[in-house]
Each structure stands twice: as C-alpha cells, then as structure tokens.
C-alpha cells in the first residue's frame, strides 16, 4: 500500500494552489456578488492547463491521471466553488464524452480548442421534466435524410452559454428499442446552429460565477455525423460520464471543506472573547478537530475511488460514496465554519458565507444524495 503522491502530483498541487490564491482569490467574492462568469479567469485557467487534464497529448490534453485531475479541482475549490465548477464540468462533462466516445474527426475538430480553455462545451442531460429520472428524456431527434432534427429543451446546463462556449452534447430520444423502451442517443450541437438557443440562467444561490443555461431546440438541424458514438448508447454514455463526474464533485466537496476549515481555524485563533481566542474553548477546538478528521476521511475515500479508476478497476460504488460523503462533509464543515465566525460569518465580507452557499449544489448536482444512496444500495445488493 502506498499513500504517497507522486512528485508530479505534489508539484501540481502546489502550482494550482499558488495559482488559485493569486489569480482567483482576489476576484472570487466580487464575481459571486455580481453573478458574473469571468472570461479572464477562465482563460488563465486554460493557460495553466486545467482543461483537458485527462485527455492524451495527441488532442492537446495533458495526459494526466485522474488523481492529478481531482487534486487540481480540489485546490481550485479550496478557494472558490464557481471556478472549480467551470473546471470540473469542463473536464468531466464537456470534454470527457467527446474524448471517450467521439469519432477521430470529432475529436480533432473540438478537443484541441476545448483543452486550452479557448472553448467550453456543455453536457445536456437534465430536462425540466427529467432530473433524477434522466432516462425519461422528452427531447427528440428524428433522422430526416442526412440530418437530425432536434426538438425539446434542457435545463441547468453548465458552461453552455459562456462567452467562449462552443456547443453541447445533448441526449435525445431517437426512436424505440425492440423492448419498447425509448432509444436514447447523444448528439453534438454547435452554438449558432439555427433552431438552437442557449439562454443563461440567473438568480442562483450558489456557483454564481459559473455559467448555467437553459437550452431550447426548435426544429434544430445538425448533420447525421454529429451523432456521438453508437446510436442507442446515449444513456449509457451519460451514466458513465457521470461516474467520472461524481469524482470531481467529490473533489469540490473536499476542497471546499478544506477552504472553509482553514478560514475557521484562522478566524477562531484570532478572535478573542472572554480574553481568550475562541478556538481555545474546548467545544470549538473539538469542532475544528472533527472538521480536520472528516476532511481527511473524505479525501482518502475520494483518492481511493480515483485510484481504482486509474487502475481500470470497478469504481462506480466508490465514486458514488465519495461524492455523497464529501458533499455531506462539506455541509457539516461549512455549517460549523460559519458558526465559529459568529455574526461575521453571515456577512458577505467574510468568504466563509460563500462556501456555506456553494456547498448546497454538491448534494444536488450530478445525482442528488438520495440518488447516490440508491446507486450504492443497488451496488451492495440491498435493493
């Protein structure tokens, strides 16, 4: 057994930490308040090489392992959830399906631009009427000669209407299977295609500097070749993508919890009440000890899941566990971190309140906590 990170992973962690502290920390609060996606920081993250981390060098990626990718997301999330979301969704949801299922032509066409962060790509699964029950998609694609004609809508799609967004992968009903169930396939749609509109959503409680969209398809026509991989495999592709994506949500939980914990530790050592730093009251010291312990446990679970994936072992159960556990740990940690800040923790001047809000997406996005429990319960044979 070896718990040591490689030297490259160590250098990577320091590099991304340094970058996040210098480039993202100074603007994170303002972007959150203005609910504004920053092209500047997105570009800077691209220049550092944070997109296309697991894509091979042939397509402009870094060819790193999953542990490295997860460390990078963790370090960005330690400073800001929104920026971590842009990276996590960019790599796991935008780039991965193209990299794993795309034709050589599709990969050559899109990946080099997506791997530098010059472009972003969305993952269109969720619909107004199909969230947890994503297989119940109502969006349709009908083959008409050499073109797919798409009709329907998607909601909550990350990175689909940013200034540098290029297109989306959409899951559509493309017919009926022999067993009578819907045939689901994924189709690539570029921004600017007539009949397709991506509208930015506003008024989010969390991830306010991350781009979220509603997608509308109205007789939108794309070439037949825009099918991603095999017809009828769409739902399977999406579920596989989510297995990987869950690891990045887990990384946002671990990183976000780490960030909030560090803020609470620093504040409570400096804040004096009753002539003593509030951290020195045993009840508070124990809270901090519990935070440190839970973060460590979540990190081990997460890295273990990534290690399984890197070593081509079955990791779905661990991915669900890591996502679920890390997001719930971040919930407990941010709650206590605000508590340790007293009244100040409720004010926007203190970053801890942003962590407290950003946490909440983690128990909902990429499969709610209930759905993770369902996945685990099935995988352990309970149901």
């Amino acid at each position, binding site marked *: 057994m070896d718990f040591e990170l490689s030297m490259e992973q160590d250098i990577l962690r*320091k590099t991304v930490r*340094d970058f996040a502290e210098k480039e993202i920390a100074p603007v994170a609060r303002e972007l959150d308040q203005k609910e504004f996606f920053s092209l500047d920081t997105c570009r800077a993250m691209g220049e550092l090489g944070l997109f296309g981390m697991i894509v091979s060098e042939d397509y402009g990626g870094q060819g790193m392992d999953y542990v490295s990718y997860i460390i990078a997301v963790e370090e960005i999330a330690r400073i800001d959830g929104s920026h971590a979301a842009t990276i996590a969704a960019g790599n796991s949801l935008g780039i991965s399906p193209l990299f794993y299922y795309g034709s050589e032509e599709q990969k050559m066409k899109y990946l080099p631009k997506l791997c530098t962060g010059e472009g972003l790509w969305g993952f269109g699964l969720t619909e107004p009427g199909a969230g947890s029950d994503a297989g119940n998609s109502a969006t349709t694609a009908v083959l008409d000669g050499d073109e797919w004609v798409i009709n329907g809508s998607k909601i909550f799609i990350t990175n689909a209407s940013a200034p540098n967004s290029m297109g989306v992968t959409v899951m559509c009903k493309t017919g009926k299977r022999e067993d009578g169930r819907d045939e689901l396939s994924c189709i690539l749609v570029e921004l600017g295609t007539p009949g397709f509109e991506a509208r930015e959503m506003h008024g989010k409680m969390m991830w306010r500097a991350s781009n979220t969209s509603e997608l509308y398809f109205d007789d939108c026509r794309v070439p037949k070749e825009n099918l991603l991989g095999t017809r009828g495999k769409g739902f399977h592709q999406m579920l596989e993508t989510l297995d990987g994506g869950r690891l990045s949500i887990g990384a946002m939980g671990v990183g976000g919890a780490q960030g909030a914990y560090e803020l609470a530790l620093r504040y409570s050592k400096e804040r004096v009440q009753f002539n003593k730093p509030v951290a020195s009251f045993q009840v508070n010291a124990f809270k901090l000890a519990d935070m440190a312990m839970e973060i460590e446990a979540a990190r081990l679970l997460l890295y273990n899941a990534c290690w399984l994936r890197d070593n081509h072992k079955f990791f779905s159960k661990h991915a669900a566990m890591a996502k679920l556990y890390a997001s719930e740990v971040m919930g407990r940690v941010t709650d206590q971190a605000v508590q340790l800040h007293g009244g100040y923790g409720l004010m926007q001047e203190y970053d801890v309140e942003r962590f407290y809000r950003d946490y909440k997406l983690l128990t909902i996005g990429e499969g709610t906590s209930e759905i993770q429990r369902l996945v685990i319960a099935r995988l352990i044979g309970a149901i």
Partner: protein
Amino acid sequence: MNIVVCIKQVPDTESVIKIAGDGKSIDTGDIKWVMNPYDEFGVEEALRIVKDQGGEVTVVGAGPARVVEALRTALAMGADKAVHIQDDDLYGADPIAVAKMLAKAIEPLSPDVVFFGQRAVDDDSGVVSSAVAEYLGMPQLSVITKLEIADGKVKGTRPIEGQTVVLEASLPAVISAQKGLNEPRYASLPGIMKAKKKPLETKTPADLGAERSDFIEIATLNPPPDRAPGKTVEGETAQELAANLAKLLKEEAKVI
C-alpha cells in the same frame, strides 16, 4: 547564452516552524518544502533571457533527495536540465561549505550567467551567491531588480534608499535576484508532464571532489517572542481619539 540557476529548497512560509530537541535545528517532520521564492526570480529571468537570446538553462540544487522536487519544479517552469548534489545533512550547514560545493558543480558547466536569489527565506544568510562568485572568480551584481544583457556585458539595477545604482560587469557573472526583477511564471500542467522527461543528474560531493568544511555552526535557534496584545485607543470624539493615539505613539511606542 548558457545560464545556471542555483535553487535552494526551503520550508513553505505557511509551515508551522518548531525548533527541534537539539535546540539548533528545526523539526522537519511536518514541513512542506518549496523552491526559495527569490530563486524563482532567477529561474524566470533565465528563461526570459534564453527565450530572447537562445541558449540553455541548467538548475543546480544541493541537499537531500527531497530537493529534487524543487529542481523538477524549475524544469516544469521551463528550465532544460538539472543537477542535484546529493548530501543528506547539508541543510543548515555553513553557507561557505555549501558555496564551495555549488562552485564545484557549476564550474564544468561553464556558464555565462549564474543566478541566485538574493537571500533564502529560511536562514537569511545571504552569503552563498557572493562566495560562489569568489570561488568561480566571477564578478557579482547583487540585489538586482532590473537586468540587461548585451554584447558580452551585463548591466543590473539595485534599488538603494530613495535611489538606484546601476552596475556593470563583463560576462561571465553572478547575479543575485531581488523581488521586483520579474513576475515568475507558474509551472504549467503541460510543463509538469514535460519535466518528467528532462535530464536530471545526481552527483555526490565525492563525485565533485568537494570536501565539506564547515567553519561555523549554529549554536542555538530561538523562537520569536510572543506578540504583545494590541491596545484599543479610548476616546469619545475624533479629536480625543487622535490625541490619545498621538500620546500612545509618543510615550509608549516611542515612535514619534
């Protein structure tokens, strides 16, 4: 242009420093190590010079195996190759002994320019670069915030109280970098992957024919004194507050 950058690995400034049981060294058990921040200026400057004028950047570091990480970081920033002088108990040694060893490693590389940070943030001795210049018989431009290299000459600017001094020397020369020289780049992710394949040579002091000769040793290390608690200035009105503050500054702090 053939450039050497010397790199020291130091504790991350965020590490909690504890004095070890011997009272002379620090407890390194829980320390995170990083490249000395002033050395980053040297790496950055070297990379910029080579980009403009062509050439090669070699980074050199001495110490235990962990030092390789600082060297690999410099390779990930863009340096071409590295030399690691493996010496397990060099950390905390007499800076003159360290300089002797570095000079032995640098000499065969026949550099045009040798960069150092103007100080290391851990022991603050600020001696190694000058001693290396002496051993190599090169001029040294120290504490430099601006540098120009052309026609076999180097021109460097050092800020002094309210003014600047401009120094000039012919190459080869030793430069010690001060904050302000440049803004060091990040080791990009593609850079980290490329660094894996760049050459890194490990040498022992014996390989270099360098003998350790420490003239000085650390007698004791003392922790910083506890900070005195702050004081709140009392007063009802702005005038009263200002008057009381002035009084405290004059009588207690004795700064005005």
